[in-house]
């Protein structure tokens, strides 16, 4: 049993060569620590800040945690009153609730003993009593009452674009990859080269003509205008074709002898076998579509059709940035991707490492 137990330092120092940690190990962990703070710190700071009230956000230097002033119910008052710590004339301190402030004086009352009556205090003698409290209203208000930021609509649009586009991409890319890897027909290689040669040509280079096509079809301010143009991804074709090449042709021939149609072979044999590659492409596609910005920005000019990214940009670009809402909505926007990452990171990292594509 004793051999299985290890102190933390032994565990940290444990290494294959059984040598003691040296300077290079020290530097390694120093780099990793600083790196972790730099990479995660700003995101954590965003999340922590998103729970602060509007008043809490303008405080400088900013406190680490979201503090809010304590409010107390006092008999005889309809609304809860803010609590202060007051230094009295005799030097003693007492927690008093403020009824109202008049100039530099505040009318206070003792919540423990309301019958004692009002006490007048100079405002310099009081400081707010605070507690750590999460301002959930930053998250809940945008769902109901902001007129210039229709969060639910944006979320709905983003979900529609992401899911529909991913399904379409998976279907048409896998069909094309199947054709390009398993059939002999005239022009096959030319078509493949044509697809792949656009791998390095981003939509940025052809913005104007694609915009014309979209406008002619009538897809301006229409989610289809965002979904369809990027659906035929060269990345997906490349990824799936390379994977399908490894599926033995004998399998297809056997199915044909059993009387399966070509569509049947695609649906029942190729798709199930290509599942790992499909999973990687699905994750990529969700990432691309959820995060897409420039193209939706051009196609969608009406508030009702904004995706989250476009809506968030418009909202943060206003003259008076309402940071408490912007921060909360940024957290909501990064949440799905973070969850996808947390559960599927193995797929993502191996997918990228093997294809070199993002």
């Amino acid at each position, binding site marked *: 049993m004793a051999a299985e137990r290890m102190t933390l330092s032994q565990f940290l120092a444990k*290494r294959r060569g059984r040598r003691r940690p040296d300077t290079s190990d020290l530097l*390694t962990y120093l780099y*990793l620590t600083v*790196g*972790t703070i*730099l*990479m*995660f710190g*700003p*995101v954590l*700071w*965003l999340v922590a800040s998103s729970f602060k009230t509007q008043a809490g956000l303008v405080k*400088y*230097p*900013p406190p680490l945690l979201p503090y809010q002033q304590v409010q107390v119910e006092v008999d005889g008052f309809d609304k809860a009153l803010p609590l202060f710590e007051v230094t009295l004339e005799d030097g003693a301190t007492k927690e008093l609730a403020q009824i109202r402030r008049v100039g530099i004086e505040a009318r206070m009352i003792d919540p423990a003993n309301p019958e004692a009556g009002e006490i007048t205090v100079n405002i310099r003698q009081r400081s707010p009593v605070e507690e750590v409290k999460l301002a959930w209203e930053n998250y809940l208000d945008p769902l109901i009452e902001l007129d210039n930021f229709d969060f639910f609509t944006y979320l709905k649009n983003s979900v529609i674009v992401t899911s529909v586009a991913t399904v379409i991409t998976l279907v048409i890319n896998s*069909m*094309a990859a*199947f*054709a*390009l890897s398993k*059939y002999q027909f005239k022009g*096959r290689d030319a*078509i493949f080269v*044509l*697809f792949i040669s656009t791998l*390095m040509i981003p939509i*940025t*280079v*052809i*913005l*104007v003509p694609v*915009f*014309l*096509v979209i406008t002619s079809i009538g897809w301006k301010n229409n989610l289809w205008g965002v979904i*369809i*143009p990027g659906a*035929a991804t060269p990345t997906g*074709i490349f990824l799936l074709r390379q994977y399908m090449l490894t599926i033995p042709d004998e399998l297809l021939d056997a199915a*044909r002898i059993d009387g399966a*149609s*070509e*569509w049947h072979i*695609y649906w029942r044999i190729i798709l199930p076998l290509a599942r790992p590659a499909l999973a990687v492409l699905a994750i990529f596609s969700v990432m691309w579509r959820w*995060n897409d*910005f*420039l193209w939706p*920005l051009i196609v969608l000019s009406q508030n009702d059709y904004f995706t989250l*990214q476009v809506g*968030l940009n418009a909202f943060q670009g206003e003259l008076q940035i309402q940071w408490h809402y912007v*921060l909360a909505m*940024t957290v909501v926007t*990064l949440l799905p991707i973070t969850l996808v*990452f947390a559960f599927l*990171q193995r797929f*993502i*990292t191996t997918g*990228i*490492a093997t294809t*070199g594509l*993002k």
Partner: protein
Amino acid sequence: MRLLALFDPLTRPLMLLLVTAVDRALTPIQRRVGIDKMGYFFVLPNLIIFGIFVLFPMLLNFYYAMTGGTKLFPADRPFIGLGNFGTLFDCGDFLSPNSCQEDLFWRGIFNTIQFVVFQVSGIVFFSLVTALVLNRKIVARGFFRSVFFYPVLLSPVVVALIWKWVLQHEGVLNAIVEVFGGESTRWLLDPNWALFWVVFVSVWALMGFYTLILLAGLQSIPPELYEASSIDGANTWQDFRFVTMPLLMPTMFVVLVLALIRAVQMFDQIYVLTGGGPGTRTQLMVQYIYTTGFSNQIQLFGLSAAASMVLGITLLVLTLLQLRLGNQSQLA
């Protein structure tokens, strides 16, 4: 994945119906054309979308670049030949953007060059160091790999907002700087600092991707080589210099070119973070294409298309460079 199975009772029958319907429709066609020609059918949906939204626009872009006016439909646009390129390249002195008719275009080019040089060297350096560190025998390697990779997945808008919040005047960075006795700064309003932060933030957001590629490259180096070099008495630096570096070169090259191609196209992060400012200090080429064609009151589609062709040619040259040198490094 298991979660999706919950929807099975709902989607299964629907799917089955759909698949059988397609199968029914296809069987007579397959009987007529034979097996191999079915390839055309499978490639068709992708080919149609590709043709309409990629191939056709690519050809149309040439025409746009040679027309003027502010109308969108090609028939309404007067043909002006190379006029747009003439406007773009109308410069008294190519080294000073102020002397150019389209000074914003040239500023965009100069800013892009600066940005690309700093950002790509930053990415190559930091992703190499990070990959080397992560390749060592360290505790919780998976965790640290995720830490450096996580920002890659965030949207450019989110990344920009995270940093805008950190960098704002009453922000946490200034608070930290003041704790260490420094002076608080308006980071994004000072021209030099703005450029620095734009580069920093994009390195922050993208380096994890390249780290991953380099890590894969490092792990494909056979360990026997290190055993051999340790028998020869090589120290850590010599290991790195004479074993790791030469074998990592092809991967480094891929990283360099990919990073270059991406950096030239940089837009969204900077657009949200600084809007191209202060002034036009961080306005890059793609932002010029976007503002000229889409966000200005007068939409000069022809000029925008011409500028995007300049961008396209740049990307083409970089890609060809990759293919050319990539083949060479494989031969070597």
